[in-house]
């Protein structure tokens, strides 16, 4: 497949504006502002069937249409570059090696949505990308692709970089808005939706890095041609970030709808010699784990929900028989506990409780009742929280309990791990590290 999102990234100068222009960059922007109306672009995005690449898969064209119908101005355009879902590193190559593709996508989007100001909300953990993006933004201003009278047309768009500071929850769009407003990143109740009342109470269009990176191509070839790539209900190219126990982990640009088997065995070189597959997390740690017999499932927003999981961000984490999943899920719960913003009690207390139970089971002190308690806690978190963080934590626990009960029971019965024959180190007292600021006295 011809590369669209990762085009030219093997070139060492790919992040520079000269190189980007030499490879045909910013031509589509020029074409869009001279030959198309904002309405035309929104129609092409609608026809493309593009669905948001941040994890939720909301149709981008529909989001844009709702925002464009709102009579309030100014409209803010925000790029969600707070890629924090463990296992996800797909946006990094765009941010670090192809930043002008993102900027071109954002400027075309701004023209379509008549937005005059945009922000890139970049996670604090990407200091390299911060420098590259700042330079890329300055370079785009220098060439007249940002600022006043872009390409000598009566169209202006200013773009700023805003750095996060290590809060996963700020990837949730309303928490991101709070954070951009200089507040604690706690999600807001919806409705109103950001498209009508977002940042500073103005219509706000928030899209993922990869979503914006698709816009120049859609504008160039048209929505209909684009929609022929990938699967019918979730078209387009997709970046998959594959990690864990495969021979060649990394970021792969592949069509939507490819099977997990093709990704693992066809592109990532399969497992290490002599190992067997134990399970796969298909879309980051907030998506339920799949057992090996389900890996022929197509990777897209439609098919994964049919086998009890979710597409998420396309972050595939592969586990072989050397991995203890009780340990993995204790770590995942520690993550959710640390990242819970504390607004909803079921999530704030439940994630810590689940982490504690999994820690006890792993270190050899678990009882049969622990399994029931774990299930009970998970069921009392699911559906009782403001944002999807609590749901994610609960649902992945329930899926793990259902599908890997034997392994959990082995720990309870034998007081040790089936992988190495030893109990896990008890982390229950000393977990965390980045968290819990020490109080000044």
């Amino acid at each position, binding site marked *: 497949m011809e590369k669209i999102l990762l085009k030219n990234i093997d070139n060492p100068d790919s992040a520079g504006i000269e190189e980007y222009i030499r490879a045909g960059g910013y031509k589509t922007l020029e074409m869009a502002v001279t030959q198309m109306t904002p309405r035309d672009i929104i129609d092409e995005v609608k026809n493309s069937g593009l669905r948001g690449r941040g994890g939720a898969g909301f149709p981008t064209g529909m989001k844009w249409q709702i925002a464009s119908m709102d009579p309030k101005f100014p409209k803010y355009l925000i790029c969600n570059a707070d*890629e*924090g*879902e*463990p*296992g*996800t*590193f797909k946006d*990094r190559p765009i941010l670090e090696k192809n930043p002008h593709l993102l900027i071109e996508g954002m400027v075309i989007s701004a023209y379509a949505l008549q937005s005059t100001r945009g922000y890139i909300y970049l*996670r*604090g*953990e*990407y*200091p*390299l990308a911060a420098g590259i993006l700042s330079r890329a933004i300055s370079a785009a201003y220098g060439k007249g692709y940002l600022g006043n009278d872009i390409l000598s047309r009566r169209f202006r768009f200013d773009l*700023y970089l*805003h*750095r*996060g*500071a*290590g*809060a*996963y929850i700020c990837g949730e769009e309303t928490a991101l808005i709070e*954070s951009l*407003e*200089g*507040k*604690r*990143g706690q999600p807001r109740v919806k409705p109103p939706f950001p498209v009508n009342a977002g940042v*500073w109470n103005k219509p706000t269009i928030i899209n993922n890095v990869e979503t914006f990176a698709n816009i120049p191509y859609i504008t160039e070839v048209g929505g209909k041609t684009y929609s022929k790539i990938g699967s019918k209900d979730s078209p387009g190219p997709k970046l998959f*970030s*594959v*990690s*864990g*126990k495969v021979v060649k*982990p*990394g*970021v792969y640009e592949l069509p939507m709808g490819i099977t997990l088997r093709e990704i693992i065995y066809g592109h990532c070189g399969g497992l290490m010699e002599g190992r067997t597959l134990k399970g796969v*997390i298909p879309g980051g*740690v907030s998506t339920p784990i799949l057992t090996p017999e389900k890996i022929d499932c197509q990777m897209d927003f439609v098919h994964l929900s049919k086998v009890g999981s979710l597409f998420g961000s396309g972050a595939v*984490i592969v*586990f072989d028989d050397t*991995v203890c999943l009780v*340990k*993995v899920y204790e*770590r*995942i719960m520690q*993550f959710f506990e*640390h*990242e819970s*913003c504390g607004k909803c009690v079921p999530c704030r207390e439940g994630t810590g409780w689940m982490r504690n139970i999994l820690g006890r089971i792993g270190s050899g002190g678990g009882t049969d009742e622990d399994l029931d308690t774990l299930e009970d806690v998970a069921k009392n978190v699911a559906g009782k929280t403001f944002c999807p963080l609590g749901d994610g934590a609960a649902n992945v626990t329930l899926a793990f309990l259902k599908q890997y009960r034997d392994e959990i029971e082995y720990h309870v019965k034998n007081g040790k791990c089936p992988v190495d024959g030893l109990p896990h*180190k008890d982390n229950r007292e*000393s977990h*965390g*590290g*980045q*968290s*819990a*600021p*020490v109080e*000044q006295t």
Partner: protein
Amino acid sequence: MTREEMESKDNETLKDKITGMKRTYPSIQSVLMPALYAVEQSYGWLSQDAIQEVSNHTGVPAAEIKGVATFYSMYRHEPMGRHLVQLCTNVSCLIAGVEDLVKFLDKKYGLLPGGTTKDGRLSLCLMECIGACGNPPAMLVDGDAYDNLTCEAIEQILEKYE
């Protein structure tokens, strides 16, 4: 220059920086996150004085600023060593053996998670995912990224950070 003069010059640039940031956002409160990064850089960490200074330049109450600052785990909420090691311990790094590296840092440097070495050279933070899952285990040292870590590699890398 006397110490006082130098300090006042330092404060001047900080004030300028924060004033410059105000052009980027339509509300003053929005300046907090970049302003906190800026004061952290000049004070070394977010001490009460540092937070008070942000308050002086923005008009946002210090208590409100502290509430915002402590929500975010990447700000430095306590004094730290000269170099900050941010080691990822999330799933992909965990199954690549990061626990051995945590033990190594303790054994070799007496460096514990959340702690600083006795000579004030290194501080360690265990991180949630830093987006380097393809080449685990991974860390940042003062913002420079390193991956595919082993105990030997860490030892060699840290030699550069005196």
